[in-house]
């Protein structure tokens, strides 16, 4: 009877991976060496493989004959709910039409704003002409009250100019 190999969990995992053909390179060669040198490891590998092959004896239960029909019947309410949730084609069309109209209206308004002629600068000059002509006087006074005082006739007397 081969001695029970004292494999670490890592060595066990490597042995299983080796049996599944998942080890490559140095890891694979290391396990191959252990198997060839240690009869206990060799026996362990053989037992693991035989145990794995035993699973092929498990029964393969087949679906009941009505399985597909029953599954499709369960699907029906899901499809019905999905159909209710999905938008109807004519609503989708109406939505697109409304979006198109809104875009056209926005474009028209934008073009109107951009195309408006700029204000005439001569109009501004005409409106402010009086202020411009008297600007040199306005510069000399601090505020409007002082200007009004200057305008009073009795400030310098009636003969001031005589």
């Amino acid at each position, binding site marked *: 009877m081969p001695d029970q190999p004292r494999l670490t969990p890592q060595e066990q*995992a490597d042995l*299983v991976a080796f049996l599944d053909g998942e080890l490559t390179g140095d890891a694979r060669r290391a396990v191959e060496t252990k198997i060839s040198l240690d009869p206990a490891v060799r026996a362990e590998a053989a037992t693991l493989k035989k*145990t*794995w092959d035993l699973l092929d004896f498990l029964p393969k*239960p*087949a679906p*009941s004959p009505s399985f597909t029909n029953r599954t499709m019947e369960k*699907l029906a309410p899901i499809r019905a709910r999905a159909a209710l949730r999905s938008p109807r084609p004519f609503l989708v069309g109406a939505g697109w039409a409304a979006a198109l109209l809104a875009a056209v209206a926005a474009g028209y308004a934008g073009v109107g704003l951009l195309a408006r002629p700029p204000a005439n600068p001569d109009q501004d000059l005409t409106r402010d002409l009086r202020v411009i002509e008297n600007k040199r006087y306005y510069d000399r006074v601090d505020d409007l009250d002082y200007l009004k005082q200057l305008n009073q006739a009795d400030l310098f007397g009636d003969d001031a100019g005589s």
Partner: protein
Amino acid sequence: MASTGETSAQLALRDPDVRLMLRVRADEVGAFEELVEQFQHRLIAVMHHLVGDATEAEDLAQEVFLRVYRARHKYRPRSKFSTWLFTIANNLALNSLRSRQRKPTTPLAVHDSGPLGPRPQEQLVRDHHSGPTQKVQREELAAVIQEALAGLNERQRAAVVLNKFEDMKAVKSLLSRARMNLRAALSGYVYMNGQPVPEAEDETDE
């Protein structure tokens, strides 16, 4: 992301299952039914190995298909379709087993086919040339293997079943511990030719 797109396209071209699922995603008439027909045998077998009950296995398989349908528009062909399908199956089976643990019920015998009764296809590996004694031996062996499988914890069982029957990758250490435990449970049945049986350590991953 161009390389991902190329990979997906290549996968779709190579894997007919992916092409079928893409037809389901496109809501092609009849595609989903075809998918159910195509995968129900594998799915129910795996579910049966995972939960140990034929009726529950069918119910869960149905739920897997319905989830696939609900998620069809989110499906992206990044890997094998079966990997996606059996990942959903595994999650559902684990949830069901955990729910069963919270609400203890009387478990069915591992060979029970449920209320639908035994089905011819549910028999063991059929060998028309073997006699009744060999058939009984095979049935007994199958029952022992099912019990050994049922003795693993949920994660180990899922790792074994999906790796063995669907070639899905599992965490190396988890699969290793599961196989060591199976080896211990089945050691008396592996060496039936008089060869001595090596002792095995009883380990769990928890």
